[in-house]
Each structure stands twice: as structure tokens, then as C-alpha cells.
């Protein structure tokens, strides 16, 4: 799937990648519904821009980059519309964050961990996808590991 030929249908690749796209979206978005909206938006863009994909490298890299920039654009737009955000909506997002360890992590840590540790991108590739310097990526990845270790300890203590 990483090296599709020119005639392959990108829609098939997208469907096969949906679980991983949703997982990455969850590390970027503020809530699960927002993550799914992000995935829909990115898939739509990818289909419309499929002629830009030349089959070089991993298609995930292209899609993850697009997702990160789409999310950043949406966030800017939301900030300008923050005045109409309701207190109820904010409260439900906070509740969801409490129940999801990924969403509760400080911004940028979960996506760095996912790309560097789980998706297998090296520091150079992952920092390019996230649009941040390599050193900042290395710092976030390390902080994410420490944070996840602490979360594991917290969970174990709560169980005890």
C-alpha cells in the first residue's frame, strides 16, 4: 500500500488506512467526533488532490501531513469563532478528555509518540509531518514516554 501504482484508486488506500487515520486524528483533535470530522475532511481533500500523489515514499506521510495542516487551519478558524462556543460544548469536551489518556496529554505529545514510536517514522520524517524542528520533536517524544509511564503508575495506584 505504501507504493501504489499510478492507476491504483486512492479511495481503496484511504479505506484501508482509515483506522490509522482516525487514530492519528485523535491525537490532534479535541474530541472523537472532531477527529472523525477531520478524517472525512482529509480523505475528501486527498481524493480531490490525488493527482498530486506521485507514489513516492509512504502515502501515510502525505496524508498525516495533510491532516496536521487541516487541523491547524480548523483550529485557527475555531479560535476566531470562539465567542459563539457554548459552555455545554466545552464541558462535554473536557469530560471526554478526562476519560481518554491520549486526549488528556498536553498538546503535541500524543502525535509525536504515535508517529515516532508506533508508526515507525524516524525523527526527520516525523518532525516534517508535524511541521516542527527535529529537536522539538525529540523533546515531545521523550516527554510523551515519561507522561505515559506516569499515567501507567497512576492507573496501577488507582487499581490498588
Amino acid at each position, binding site marked *: 500500500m505504501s507504493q501504489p501504482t499510478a*492507476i491504483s484508486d486512492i479511495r481503496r488506500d484511504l*479505506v484501508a488506512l482509515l483506522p490509522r487515520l482516525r*487514530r492519528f486524528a485523535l491525537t490532534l483533535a479535541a474530541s472523537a467526533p472532531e477527529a472523525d470530522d477531520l478524517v*472525512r475532511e482529509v*480523505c475528501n481533500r486527498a481524493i480531490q488532490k490525488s493527482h498530486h500523489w506521485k507514489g513516492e515514499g509512504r502515502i501515510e506521510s502525505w496524508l498525516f501531513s495533510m491532516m496536521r495542516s487541516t487541523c491547524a487551519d480548523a483550529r485557527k478558524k475555531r479560535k476566531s469563532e470562539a465567542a459563539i462556543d457554548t459552555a455545554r460544548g466545552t464541558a462535554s469536551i473536557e469530560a471526554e478528555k478526562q476519560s481518554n489518556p491520549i486526549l488528556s496529554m498536553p498538546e503535541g505529545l500524543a502525535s509525536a509518540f504515535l508517529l515516532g514510536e508506533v508508526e515507525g517514522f524516524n525523527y526527520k520524517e516525523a518532525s516534517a509531518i508535524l511541521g516542527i524542528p527535529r529537536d522539538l520533536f525529540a*523533546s515531545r517524544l521523550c516527554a510523551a514516554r515519561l*507522561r505515559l509511564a*506516569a499515567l501507567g503508575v497512576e492507573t496501577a495506584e488507582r487499581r490498588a
Partner: protein
Amino acid sequence: MPVSPPSFLQLRLSAHNDGETGEQERHDIDALLVNDPQARAQQDSLKRGTEAGRRFFEDLLKEPVPLEMVRTIKNAPLPRRAVRLPNGPRSPVAFRPSGPQALAGCLLFLALGGGIGYMFGANPAGPDISALAAPASDERDWLDDVVATYRLYERQPKHLAEIGPDGKADILEWLTTNTGVGFRIPDLSESGLTFAGARLVAAKGHPLGVLFYKRSDGDGDVVAITFAKSSPDLGKSIEDIRSDTALVSWNTALATYVVVGPSSAADLDDIAAKAAGLI
């Protein structure tokens, strides 16, 4: 829970775990891990975090994807791409009249118009003017016949072609003789199309060769490549949709070609571009 930035040692250990350190740094950290209990404790902590995170993210993959999301993506229309098709022969001489030539032309047409008007005025028993002015749109155009042929036969899965895919040599001889167009049967398997046979039909009184292809991906859609020696209606390449049928045409100096398929075929222009190069 507040997060303090990682220490220099933690950063070094994390990069070491990822194989992102140089040779010398790797040796230094290996030595440190042997001699320094604090470094080992930090290393264990990082590994615990890695294990916990991996488990968590692996579990996320098990969550079912909404069916509606899958369907939306599968059915999303692909963008139409601009495809370069061969153009018909162009006149090497451009028509660019000078000012005096244009004026002379205007005067000539004025005189002609006046003369014809005088003739009609002087001879009221001439041909019926209303008949001359009847709308040309009553005439079915050549492409309508091509589309009608396609729509008729694509619904006849058992009788799609007169000569089946096994008789390629017969098809070549038969259609070349009757249409006057030399051609090859394009192999469009790269586009998921399998050759299914050929027919000879008439479109606006001209013999029309039709090569049928079927989608091999299970949809069973029929795509046809048609060709005729003359091009009664077409002066340029066109892309159009008529009666739920999409068509893409192009001309060469010797023939006119039209690829016809269902309007849902987003790749028809691609198929036409490939066929143009192979036929």
C-alpha cells in the same frame, strides 16, 4: 498533571532507544547504563511509557470504523483530469485579414445579400422561406446515434458483440474493410477493461466500428470505443454526458473516435487517452 520538560539525560536515553544517536554517543550511553543506576532507572521509566503507549494505540486500532465513513469514501467521485487527446489536422495558414481586406469582404457580402433579397422579392413563387428557416436541431446528430448504439448493446450481456473477443483477426479485417479506418485493438487491461468483441453499426448513415470492453472488477460496466472514417459533426475533441452516458471524442487526420461509457465512469478520459495511444 503538569509535565516538566525532559532532562538532558532523559532526552539522550530516548534518542538512544530510537537509534537516533551517533556511534560515539551510543557507546557513551551504553557505558552509562552499565555504571549509573539513575540512568538505568530513567531508562526503565522510558521503556514503561513506551510499552503503555504502544498498548494503548494498538487498542485504538480495534475500534470499528463507522460504516457511513467507509461508504462516503468508497463512493466519492474522483476528480476529472485534463487529458491531452490528439487534435485533428490544422490548417497551416491562419486567417488574419487586413483592414482593407475586411472592408472589401463586408462590401461583397452586402452586395450578395442585396442581390439575393432582390431575387426573392422579384420572384415570390420561389422556395418556401419557412422551410429554409426550419431549425436544424430536429436532426439527430451523429453522437446521438453513437450513444443510442452504446445504450442498446450495453444492456445485452449475452449478445453484446457480433464477433467475440477470440476473433480478433476477423474483427480487424472486417471493420477495417467496412469503415475504411486502419486500427489496432487496444489492450486496456491496465484500466481494468477486458476486450469483449466488436460490432459494425451505422451512425447518421456512416459505418461505425464499435469495440466493446467490460470492466473486470465485478461491476460489469461496458465501455465502447467507436470509430468512423468521416466526422460529420465533430470538428474538435469533446467530453459530454448524454442520457446518462459519458463520451469522450477525438479526431485524427483519418478518423473520428469516441469512447462511450456509463456517466459514473470517472476514468473515461484516462481510458480515451490510453486508447488514443494504442488504437
